């Protein structure tokens, strides 16, 4: 499929969330211990299919039909298993976009983090979500139309609620935290710089003294 003219300088970004949820199976028929779902969706639960042609989840080879493809939402796979492995999520874009597919590498997470392993309540789902943005740089005119016309409703929720854990609020909070860390780190840096300077002065002085004493002895 020939791709149309690209629009120079135009950049459009679309937020996505991918990751997995896993819950421990309380009744086990096989050696499978967990039920998990790996998914790709919009942060606000909105439709993202208007700029996606197909999504492929590549599971571990031991799964039956380990390459699961979806042309329509929901883009998610629910399975049971016992082991963590890397899932490659391949996102294909409509042919008019002329874009190559993009791959997300996600480590399936079944067990709570080690630090909380003891206190984790039985049956509480383990979430491992990632927020990311797809940046469409210089899209073709047709794809640009798709990207702009298809949007419907807000893409990022204002506040955290339920399943929507990435929000504008959390973005702002994250920025604030990062900024305070930058301030903290620069402060520390200046502290050490000062220390290094002082140390250099002292070294120079000690050298001088030692030289004098050596020539005296």
């Amino acid at each position, binding site marked *: 499929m020939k791709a149309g003219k690209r629009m120079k300088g135009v950049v459009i970004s679309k937020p996505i969330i991918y990751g997995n949820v896993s819950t421990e199976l309380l009744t086990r028929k096989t050696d499978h211990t967990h039920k998990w779902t790996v998914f790709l969706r919009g942060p606000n639960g909105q439709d993202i299919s208007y700029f996606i042609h197909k999504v492929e989840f590549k599971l571990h080879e031991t799964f039956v039909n380990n390459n699961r493809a979806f042309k329509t939402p929901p883009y998610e796979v629910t399975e049971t298993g016992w082991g963590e492995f890397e899932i490659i999520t391949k996102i294909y874009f409509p042919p008019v976009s002329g874009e190559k597919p993009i791959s997300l590498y996600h480590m399936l997470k079944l067990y709570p983090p080690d630090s909380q392993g003891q206190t984790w309540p039985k049956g509480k789902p383990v979430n491992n979500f990632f927020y*990311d943005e797809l940046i469409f740089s210089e899209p073709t005119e047709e794809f640009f139309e798709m*990207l702009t016309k298809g949007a419907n409703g807000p893409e990022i929720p204002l506040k955290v609620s339920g399943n929507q854990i990435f929000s504008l609020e959390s973005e*702002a909070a*994250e920025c604030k935290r990062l900024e305070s*860390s930058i301030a903290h780190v620069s402060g520390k*840096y200046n502290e050490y710089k000062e220390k290094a*300077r002082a140390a*250099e002065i002292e070294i120079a002085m000690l050298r*001088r003294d030692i030289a*004098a004493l050596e020539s005296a002895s």
Partner: protein
Amino acid sequence: MAIKPKQKAPGMSRELTSLYLENQTIPVSLDHFQAKPKFGSRAERWVWRGFKSSARSDDLALYHWTKASETYTDYFYARYNAKTKPYDYTDEEYDKCIEPLDKGWSRVETDYLLYLCKQFDLRFVVIHDRYYSHPDCPSTGVVPERTLEDLKERYYAICRALIQHRAGEDARDPDDLPLQATNKLADDLALLKFDKAKEQERKQYLEALFMRTKDEIEEEEILITEARRIEANERRLIQEREMLLQSHCMFEPAPTTTTISSIKVQFAQASDSVPLLQSNSASASAGDTTPKGRKGAPDSSDTPSARPMKKQKSVHGVASAVRTKAGAAASKAQSAGAQSPGARPLGFGAGEMAGPSSVAASSLERRSMSPLRGGLFGGIKQERSEGESQFGAVSFATEEHLVNPAIVQVEAADLGDIIVAQRDSRLGPGVFLRSDKLHPIPKNKLESVKQFMEQLSLNCPNTIWPRPVMATAAVCDRFDSLQATIIPLLECKKTADKLETEIQVLRARKRMLVESIGEDKTEEALSKLPPFDPSKVVSTRAVTPSIAETPVASNRQHNRKGSTASTRKKARE
């Protein structure tokens, strides 16, 4: 407990048992060499044969075993009997070119020297050894106490003079001579060069080296290793200082910092604009008290708040439509619950739409052409989230919603000027993942940076590379600057620690010197240093000298920071 030699543990092989039990001989199987010699061909015949050597002048016949098949002409090793051909001269040549060379040498002695040279094959050590004891030594005319160098010098001087003389006698013009011949002359002269002074010096050195005592040798070795160590340290330290300096440079005028400041400027603008925005929205809501707020949309296109949108071209039609919708929703929500805390963000939202400057524009870019933040009001539930946020408990102030990435204005062919996040502006065509486009960290620093990030609990868990939890453009901007700050910090800390150890070493050295010299002499020695006052000498005797009064800064002019630091310290005290 003594182990009986015959004791055998059950279930263990004999070898294992003997390995396991001490003091027992381990049986080693010897491989007997059993390969038989192979006779591929018949053995060759050897004969006892007499031979003569051309190297001998006495015709002595000796015998040895050789292969019968070998044809034989001369003794094999005779070829190594190379004879040197010492130069010789005629009377005429002597008078012409050798006589004026050195008045200290008589003809008799010169003849004698050449005779010895011939006899001993130019082995000057032997020549020198026999010089006065040789039976052919002339009784008169031999100057006593010639050194080896004297003999060599004389001989080579004669050689050179003869070569030059003979070349000069060649009737041909030197320019006509084939190049080879001139080259050969130059080569010969170079080969026969002898520098007596240098030779003597060389021997003196060797002598001195040979005469060292054991103690001296040991001392020298210690000194050499010490010197090597110091050199290595110096190099390393210089390198580290340079790196530190580089990281200073990297840090101080760093573009990342400038983007931070630009972000901050935007923050300032944003928060400045908030009151204005709020008043705007307040007036809007005041005017529009109907619960449905249906007038909100058309109205807002007339109010000043909508003006910036008109500037944006048609693509933004979608966006502005959404915005207007949002405006309507905002005013609706506001009128519905004006007193609830949830109303504050709404006020902000309306304000964002009204934002006259880059704030609105950039947020437009962010959700570019698609629903904007303003559009959130329509759909969002105005309830406090009960669920645990992944980001820790943070209370939100209105203006904090205005997080914007650094932005640039880009001229797009089809749309006119649009505003794009700085970090997105140079990607080139294609699809990218936001988190893939973070500034890469040098591989060797990856681990330490990651660790540091984790200490600050800023890193996203479960990833190989450091990555922000929520990779939006604004967050990524700050994340990049944070990393750009962490790397120099780690470098700086490392250098500071190194310098600290160096200080410890130097202090110890100084203390040692002070002890060995004695305090009185120390004081005396230090007081001779021009920049030190006696009062300061007192302070240097203490383990920690005061830096404030150190005039060392003048020594370190290459490093202006040194002087500023000391003046600052002075000011503090």
